[in-house]
């Protein structure tokens, strides 16, 4: 599973598949102060992207993948302060 949940931190490793969206939603719904780590992510399925856009969770790290980074920065960039806090 590319989605690894560890307490209040969810890390997406590699490419997030479509069914990860549901898991991610339940994680974000049920966890207090959830943080998502996109560092090791190299692709997000559109459904997962939608979840992130809807919930705008705090991000531990932005993706290292330059293509994904360029895409996500304007979309999720507002999560900046949380980024620092989580780090």
């Amino acid at each position: 599973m590319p989605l690894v949940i560890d307490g209040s931190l969810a890390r997406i490793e590699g490419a997030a598949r479509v069914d990860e969206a549901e898991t991610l939603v339940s994680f974000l719904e049920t966890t207090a102060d959830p943080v998502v780590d996109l560092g090791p992510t190299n692709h997000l399925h559109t459904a997962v992207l939608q979840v992130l856009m809807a919930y705008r969770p705090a991000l531990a790290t932005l993706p290292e993948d330059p293509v994904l980074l360029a895409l996500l920065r304007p979309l999720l960039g507002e999560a900046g302060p949380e980024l620092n806090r989580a780090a």
Partner: protein
Amino acid sequence: MSEGGSSLKEQFLIEGRDLVESAGECLLRLEKEPDDSALVASLFRAVHTLKGNSGLFPVPPLTRVVHAAEDVLDEVRAGNLTLDSEMADVLLDALDQVSAWLDAFDRLDHLPDEADEVASGLAARLAVFRFDADAPPEPGDSGPDLAADWLDGLPAGDLAAAETALRTGGPVVLIDYTPDSGCFFRGEDPLRFMLTLPGRVWLAVTATQPLLPGPDFDPYQAALRFRAISTASLSEVQTHLAYVAAQVAIGAQTPPPAAPSTADPVLRALLEATAEALACPGPAEAFAGRMASTATVLSALLPQAGLGAEAAVMAARDQALAAGQATALQDLLAAALAPKPAPVAASPAAADPAAAPKAAPRRQGVLKVDQARIDMLMKLAGELIVAKNGLPFLANRAEEVFGSRAMAREIRAQFDVFNRIVDELQTAVMQVRMVPLGSVFDRFRRLVRDLSRQVDKPLVFVVEGEETEADKNIVEDLGEPLIHLIRNAVDHGLETPAERRAAGKPAEGQVRLSARLAEDKVVIEVADDGRGVDVARVRAKAVERGLISADEAAQMPDEAALRLILRAGFSTAETISNLSGRGVGMDVVATMVERSGGTLSLRSQPGRGTTVTITLPLSMTVRRLMMVELDGSQYGVPLEMVLETARIPQDQLHRHLGPPQIVRRDRLIPLCDLRRPLRLAPRPQEPAELSVLIVATAQGEVGLIVDAFRSGTEVIPQPLDGPLAGLACLSGAALLGDGSILMILDLEEVLKCPW
């Protein structure tokens, strides 16, 4: 509020149709006078206004097509393109499509499903002209228009990035991809499609609806929209997105070559030349002079372009002179030449000053009124006429029943007053309904142009008397018969250019459509200068078809023989049209004209051409009838058909074969006892003198034997409905002043019954 919305829509539709029509006219005229810049301007204005208006309604494909047309016309207006017939063809097609969409939108409140596809096709066909143009696209100051709409609703950061991507130079492909909400269930990953897009230089993701976290959030309902710019070729992009083609809109665009800072290419060229001159090394002693002259040029140019004030130029000059270096002036120039952040989302209406006065000329005392209201007014005026006509009956009763002659006189005097006022009222209402025939004639320019190209017969289409006015319904009813007549004239009446030359005529044929007023009638003629009708051929064909006997054919005068082509059954199958020139559905045309209360006549000269004349009443709402009595009832005969009334002694009847005949002015006229075709009881005894109403029909003059003549009258005919609707012999009924009902005879139909 909803009413406001619907009336806005109505207004859009009315105005839209007007604009399409006027654009079409401009186009056709432009084809003849391509240099008329006023025409180009009004064409552009029409299309531009249409585009602006359409933006208010959910008709994006329509907007897209009009937009594409506007882009092409803009180039034409700027002089980068010349309007040729090929371009006119495509533009006319686009207008036709828009017109069809307006109708569809009127009916359905939305456009047909395939509209998107059709729009793309048309837009692409239109775009070809712009890309083919040798001249670079005009560097518009509002940025590329297509992108302006396309980028709506993006955050500023994305807009700027898109702008930069668009300005990279070279053609780009614009992609607008809105995955449908169920796409995830088909295993689609739209983001992957976009990330792997060939040549992707820019990508923006937005939500199509607010994405709200919470229990109601469904991650499997796609609600995103992707917009991207690619530098790959159109076909590459199309191949890549073929799988989701239905959800994607793709547009190709050639952006302005460089980022222009000024709207005027001349200004830009001047600035560039100045910069170049400034960069050239020159002798030190000339430095001050060069700086001064550069500053002079700049101080003239920059304020003009709105890029800087004279004072700034002078300050830069002083600075340059002081420093001994041209840097300050060069900076100023560089700033002027640098790409200015284009106002991408500028509203198109604001960007074009031509749009500003668009509604102004319409306000000059012209009122657009729903036709139903005018019809109501007309109906009331009509009823007033009927009520007014009741007064003479009342006067008679006063005199005969109550024996008061003085009272009768007073009523008659009052009737005269009423008469005058009602007459004026009727005229006034009729005036309101009058429209110039030009409104219908203008449509035919297009028809003739298309036909002429289709059958490859170059021709001059002359239209005369467009300003002649007639009742709106009459004018509208005219459209179809005229289309047939004009088509006949072009297709069959005119010879091929080769034949014409051989006959010593100019290769270009002529079709003339004219209208004029004759008393209370409109006379419309469709004339060609073609080969004329071959009357011998018509006779032969009529005999062959069993319409007349060979003897009849031989005796028939040419004029009557010519009328044979108006008979039903004359032109059913392949007809003589290809040989003699006429005959395609002429009976249909004649019927249509007669239904509107008009008559149709033919004139033809071999080798000189054919003229078809349609005579119509100015207004058909009020009909003038001659009343006759038959078997104790009153019937109305259209007054325009009546030639004369006569009392014929029995001994003047010629009884040979067939019906009895009379001689009037050396002509034999067959007599028809009107009781027979109407299947009324035969006359109890033959009167010594017959009352004969001589009428002109399609078959020639016929004498109708009636019981007695009554006065002429004006009535408002009502169509028959219910079980009576099927009676072909009656064209309608009308209420008379005394409350009785008058049946109006359709004589052409009556005479088709055996008599």
